[in-house]
């Protein structure tokens, strides 16, 4: 167990170091960028160089990188030029909003996919199985922005029962926050579920062909009991890592849904930072994103060990 955490902690540190250095070097290799951005297009070259010197940007990248890491350690993430506030002031607020959206979606994706995937996989080739396979393929094939447009044109434009934006603010039309969340959550759940359902189904189909399932059936065990006691637990071993990786997608990948529905989340903040070239915010956001990703990988491995006693070290 100690070895497990040691190995993963090391991988996390190496990944964070590599990513932070790459992002830092890429954005700050040409130091003129920051000062030029601050002073505007009409500043003279002397003014830019003066500000570079004052900000200490004329020193080598390696020196500035070490200094940057030192600042990170004390919790100073820099100053966002796009939002004109310290990065720590905005990033955690947006992360909280995205985590909220992600948590609701995750709470729906996991039980629904397990239910549909197991039900489809336990009778391979049945009508229900084919229906689920077609549904999963279609759901995973439609890009999120297209799904957003399709759902919005039905429920917002045509039926007029839901709002088209989810700003989390009480809006003029009087839509409540739960009503605002319905469409973003629906798009995320449909898109992501298509993928997870097919994974669980494939794993279930494989397990149902194993000899121990046949033995359990032949010894007279009831079918529901065979499914619940023997099949499901074994069928969940492989998909559980995939399911944990969805957290990754839910935190960092929902930028499209956040953009479609004007949701004040982490992904949209990163997009605005990238379009505005807000370097401090991009760097901090990249680190947060990688931290979330590696953490979910570790969680996935832990869940894997809990389900499969053979790999407990």
């Amino acid at each position, binding site marked *: 167990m100690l070895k497990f955490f040691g190995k993963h902690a090391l*991988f996390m540190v*190496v*990944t964070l170091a*590599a*990513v932070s250095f790459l*992002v830092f070097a*890429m*954005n700050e290799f040409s130091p003129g960028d920051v000062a030029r951005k601050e002073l505007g297009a009409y500043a003279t070259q002397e003014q830019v160089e003066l500000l570079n010197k004052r900000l200490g940007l004329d020193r080598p990248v390696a020196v500035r990188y070490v200094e940057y890491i030192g600042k990170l350690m004390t919790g100073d993430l820099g100053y966002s030029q796009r939002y004109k506030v310290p990065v720590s002031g905005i990033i955690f607020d947006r992360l909280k909003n995205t985590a909220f959206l992600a948590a609701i979606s995750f709470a729906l994706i996991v039980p629904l996919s397990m239910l549909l995937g197991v039900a489809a996989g336990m009778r*391979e*080739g049945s009508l229900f199985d*084919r229906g689920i*396979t*077609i549904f999963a*393929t*279609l759901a*995973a*094939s*439609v*890009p*999120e*922005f*297209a799904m*957003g*447009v*399709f759902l*919005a*044109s039905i429920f*917002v*434009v045509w039926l007029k029962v839901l709002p*088209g934006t989810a700003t989390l603010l009480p809006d003029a039309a009087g839509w409540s926050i739960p009503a605002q969340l319905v469409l973003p959550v629906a798009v995320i759940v449909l898109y992501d579920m298509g993928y997870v359902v097919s994974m669980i189904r*494939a794993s279930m*189909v494989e397990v149902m062909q194993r000899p121990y399932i046949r033995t359990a059936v032949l010894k007279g065990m009831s079918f529901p009991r065979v499914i619940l006691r023997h099949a499901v637990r074994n069928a969940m071993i492989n998909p559980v890592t995939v399911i944990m990786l969805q957290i*990754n*997608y839910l*935190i*960092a*990948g929902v*930028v*499209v849904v956040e*953009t*479609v529905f004007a949701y004040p989340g982490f*992904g949209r903040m*990163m*997009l605005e*930072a*990238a*379009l505005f*070239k807000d370097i401090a915010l*991009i760097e901090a*956001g*990249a680190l947060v*994103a*990688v931290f979330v*990703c*590696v953490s979910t*990988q570790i969680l996935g491995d832990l869940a894997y060990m809990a389900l499969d006693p053979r790999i407990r070290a």
Partner: protein
Amino acid sequence: MTLQTTIDRVVPASPPRRGAVRGMLRQIARITENVPAMVGFAIVAFWVLAALFAPVIAPFPPNANNMSALAYPYPSTTYWLGTDHLGRDILSRILWGARTVLTVAPIAVLGAAAIGSLLGLMAGYYRGWIDGLISRVGDIILSFPVIILYMIILAKFGSSGLNIIVVIAVTKAPIIARIVRGITLELRERDYVMAAKMRGESALYIMFCEILPNARGPLIVDFCLRLGYTTIIIGVLGFLGIGLPPPDPDWGGMVKDTYGMMLVWPHMSLFPCAAVSSLVIGFNLLAIGLREISLRD
């Protein structure tokens, strides 16, 4: 796995292979029997033809705007799918947009396949520290949320077709490398690889002429899946405004420009959305069908 499992189970085992031409004919015959593969193929073929003949069949130039069409921008006899917010013909823009996506996506995926196959072959064939290095670096690239990576890189270097191709090739290569590595590890122990070694063939010859051709099955299936994902990514980048630069038509970009006007003119975003969704569905069905066929062997 399949929509057709019941039928598959009844189909008798195929006779042993005689000659390359007959083998190929049998392969083609088997693909035509598979429903998902044929539906997928038909959809993809439709868009490929649309892309090839866009200059001939598109009724208007893709960027020609006719402001007076905005009086009635809905589908009509002149503009079959209506016009967009600048009075440009949506049908023509969708046909030309097929050209964009069907150029960028295959080149990007081919690039990823080339880099990934090379790295995967090396990792699986040499093993040891080369494998360790390639696999670890791949893990680091894969642990990064792709879309955030695109944003960082495209914000720094600007958006162009070439940048999109490079970014997709680099981020998708580790996945392909992982698949090829797994197959190589298994194939390197085979007799024909041993025989080639005894003949004194070079490592490069063995990797590319002995191992790679035998790994083609899973690679072709993955290629189709990857094309679908890449079509989604290109659409998403266009939608986020960091894709191919305007004004040339790009399905994602068409949606980005018009989805704000959905309450008034929903058709402007619905048609490009339908186009991109159908192409991805085509690629995915093709992949599902090909996988079914290869599993039956």
